[in-house]
C-alpha cells in the first residue's frame, strides 16, 4: 500500500523549473495572510487586556512569515500540527477567524466549543491537527501523521512545527530517528524565535545550528530567514518536494522572533527593549513584504484595500467572540469518551 504514489510524484517532478520566489499575486496573498494574523493577534491582545480572554494566550506577532510561507507549499490533504502558539497556523490553514477568537473567549462558537482554549483547536476539514499545550508532544504526533500518509500511500506531507525550546525534548529525537528510519513524509520546522519563555536559546541548547540537529539520522536541514516570506516559501518548496518524492523527513530551522512576551502574563524582562525594537524595525516580515510589493508596482490604494478587508474580518471575529454564548455546563461533560448512541 505504501509508496504507491509514483504518478503523482512524477507529475510534480516535471514542475521542477522554478520561477522567481513569488510573483505579484502570490506576494499580495502572502501579505494579506500575514496581515490577517498580525491584526488578529493584536485584537486578541486587546480582548485579553479587557478581561474577555482569560488564561494562557500566546501571540504569534513577528513570526507570521514562517507559517504563511510554508502554507503556500501545501496541497489539499497535507497536514499541519503545532504547539500552543497556534492562532497564526490556524488562520493560515484557512480556519475561520470567528471560530478561533470565540475559542479564546471560551464560547460555544469556538472550534472546541470553549473546552480547549487558545492552545487547543483543531479542524479536520482544514488539515489542522492542533494546537498542543505540552512542549514537544506534537512532534511525535506529526511523525505519526506522516506515517499515516506513508501507510496510505498518498502523496501528502505533514508540516510539524515546534519551538527551539521544544527542540530539547527527548521525544523530538525519538521522532527524528523513526521518521528517518521509515522515510516518513514530514517536514520538521523549528521556529527559532530565540527564546523559550525566559530562557534564550544559548542558555538552553548546546547545539548552535539547530538545522543540523537531524544530521545524525541523515535528515537534511537548512537555516532559513524566517522573517522573509519569500525565503520561507522557497525553502519550504524544497523540503516538501523532498518529502513527496519519498526521500524522508526534512528539517527547516526558521530564524524568527516574537515581539510580544511568551504569553500575555510575561513582562519579558529577560531581554532588552532595544533588542525587540531592532528586530521590529529592521526585519519585520510584513513591512518587508510591503516594500517588495511596492517594488512590484503595487500601489497604496491596493494595499489599503487589503488592510480594510483584514480589519473587517478581525472586527467581525471579535464581535462574534463576544456574542457567542458560553457553553452550558452539560457541554463540559461531553467528549470525554465516545458517546453511546441513546
Amino acid at each position: 500500500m505504501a509508496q504507491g504514489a509514483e504518478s503523482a510524484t512524477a507529475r510534480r517532478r516535471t514542475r521542477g523549473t522554478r520561477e522567481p520566489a513569488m510573483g505579484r499575486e502570490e506576494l499580495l496573498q502572502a501579505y494579506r495572510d500575514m496581515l490577517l494574523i498580525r491584526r488578529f493577534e493584536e485584537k486578541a491582545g486587546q480582548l485579553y487586556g479587557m478581561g474577555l480572554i482569560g488564561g494562557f494566550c500566546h501571540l504569534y506577532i513577528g513570526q507570521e512569515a514562517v507559517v504563511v510561507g510554508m502554507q503556500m507549499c501545501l496541497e489539499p490533504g497535507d497536514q499541519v500540527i503545532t504547539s500552543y502558539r497556534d492562532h497564526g497556523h490556524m488562520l493560515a490553514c484557512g480556519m475561520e477567524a470567528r471560530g478561533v477568537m470565540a475559542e479564546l473567549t471560551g464560547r460555544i462558537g469556538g472550534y472546541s466549543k470553549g473546552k480547549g482554549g487558545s492552545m487547543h483547536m483543531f479542524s479536520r476539514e482544514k488539515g489542522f491537527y492542533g494546537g498542543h499545550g505540552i512542549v514537544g508532544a506534537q512532534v511525535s504526533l506529526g511523525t505519526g501523521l506522516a506515517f499515516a500518509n506513508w501507510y496510505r500511500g498518498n502523496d501528502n506531507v505533514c508540516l510539524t512545527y515546534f519551538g527551539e525550546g521544544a527542540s530539547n525534548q527527548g521525544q523530538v529525537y525519538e521522532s527524528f530517528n523513526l521518521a528517518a528510519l521509515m522515510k516518513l513524509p514530514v517536514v520538521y520546522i523549528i521556529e527559532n524565535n530565540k527564546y523559550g519563555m525566559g530562557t534564550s536559546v544559548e542558555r538552553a541548547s548546546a547545539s548552535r545550528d539547530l538545522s543540523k540537529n537531524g544530521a545524525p539520522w541523515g535528515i537534511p536541514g537548512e537555516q532559513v530567514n524566517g522573517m522573509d516570506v519569500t525565503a520561507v516559501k522557497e525553502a519550504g518548496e524544497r523540503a516538501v518536494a523532498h518529502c513527496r518524492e519519498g526521500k524522508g523527513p526534512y528539517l527547516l530551522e526558521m530564524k524568527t522572533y516574537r515581539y510580544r512576551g511568551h504569553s500575555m502574563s510575561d513582562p519579558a524582562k529577560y531581554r532588552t527593549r532595544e533588542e525587540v525594537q531592532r528586530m521590529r524595525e529592521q526585519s519585520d516580515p510584513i513591512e518587508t513584504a510591503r516594500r517588495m510589493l511596492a517594488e512590484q508596482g503595487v500601489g497604496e490604494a491596493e494595499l489599503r484595500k487589503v488592510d480594510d478587508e483584514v480589519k473587517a474580518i478581525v472586527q467581525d471575529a471579535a464581535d462574534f467572540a463576544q456574542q457567542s454564548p458560553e457553553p452550558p455546563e452539560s457541554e463540559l461533560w461531553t467528549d470525554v469518551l465516545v458517546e453511546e448512541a441513546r
Partner: protein
Amino acid sequence: MPRRTMIEAIRDALDVMMARDPRVVVFGEDVGYFGGVFRCTEGLQRKYGPSRCFDTPISESGIVGAAVGMAAYGLRPVAEIQFADYMYPGYDQIVSEAARLRYRSAGEFTAPLVVRMPCGGGIFGGQTHSQSPEALFTHVCGIKTVIPSNPHDAKGLLIASIEDEDPVIFLEPKRLYNGPFDGHPEKPAVPWSRHPLSETPEGHYTVPLGQAAVRREGAAVTVLAYGTMVHVAEAAAEETGVDAEILDLRTLVPLDIDAIVRSVRKTGRCVILHEATRTSGFGAELSAQVQERCFWHLEAPILRVTGWDTPYPHAQEWDYFPGAARVGRALRAAVEG
C-alpha cells in the same frame, strides 16, 4: 515574625537550605537566570552561582532523571517542574527510578530528591495548567507526597522534604502563591499578609512530614482537605454555619491516619475534598481508610466533593472547581444524613 507569601516562603526555604548544605542544588526550566515563572527561585542564582542554581533545557525526563543520579551520589537536588501538568515526560523517572532505587538495591542506593511542582486550578489555565495529579504519586510506593496550604507550612515542609532521606513530590497549589483563596473568584483577592499563617520564622525550622493540622475545631463533621481546598472548607463552614472540624492533611504520604481517625470518631461524619478528578482520586483512598477504621462510629455515608471526571475545561472554570457552595451543600448533607 516576618510575613511571607507562599512564593517568598518557598524561596526562603531554598535559600536557607542552600546556605546550610552545599549538597543542595536547585534547577529546572527558567529557574536560574529568570528566577522561575512564579519567581520561587528569584535571586538564588545570583547568590549561589550557576552551578548551584541553574536553568535546564525543556526536558522533564532529563531533569528528573539527572536528579536521581545526583541524589544517588550524595547531592540533594531540588528540581522544579514548571507546572505539574508537565511532569508526565518525567513521570517514568519518578516512578521507575526515584521511587524504586532504595528497594531494588536493598538500601544500597537511595534518591533523596525533591521535585517541586505548582498544581491545581483557579487560574483559568485550562487542561495544561490546572491539574492536580497527587493520586498519581500517592499510588506509587517509594515516594512521599507533600502539599502545603499556607506559607508557614510551605517553608517548614519544604525544608523537611529536602532533609528527608526519600524522594519527595512537593506540590504547590499555585492559586495560593499570592494569597489564600477560598473558592470565591468574585471576591477581591486577599493577600497573605492578612492571614496568620503567613508568619514564617526566620532561618531553619521544619514541619515534619506525616502530621496533619486541625485548622478549625468542630463537633458536627470532619472535613479532610489539603492545599487550596483547606481554605474553601473554611469558607464553606463559615457560610453554612456547620460546626465542621477541618483537617489540613499537609502530607498525603506519609498520611497522619491517627489524626483522621481521632477526628472522625469524635464527629461521626466525614466529608473529603479535593480539586482532582473523582474516580481513583486520593479521596477514594481516604474514604476507604476511614471506613476501615471508623465504621462503627460513622453516622452517615462518607461524602466526597471533587473536580469532575473530565479534563479541566477552559470555559466555565467555576462550574468545574469544587467551590464553597458545593462544599457547603456536602457539609449540610453530611450533618443531616
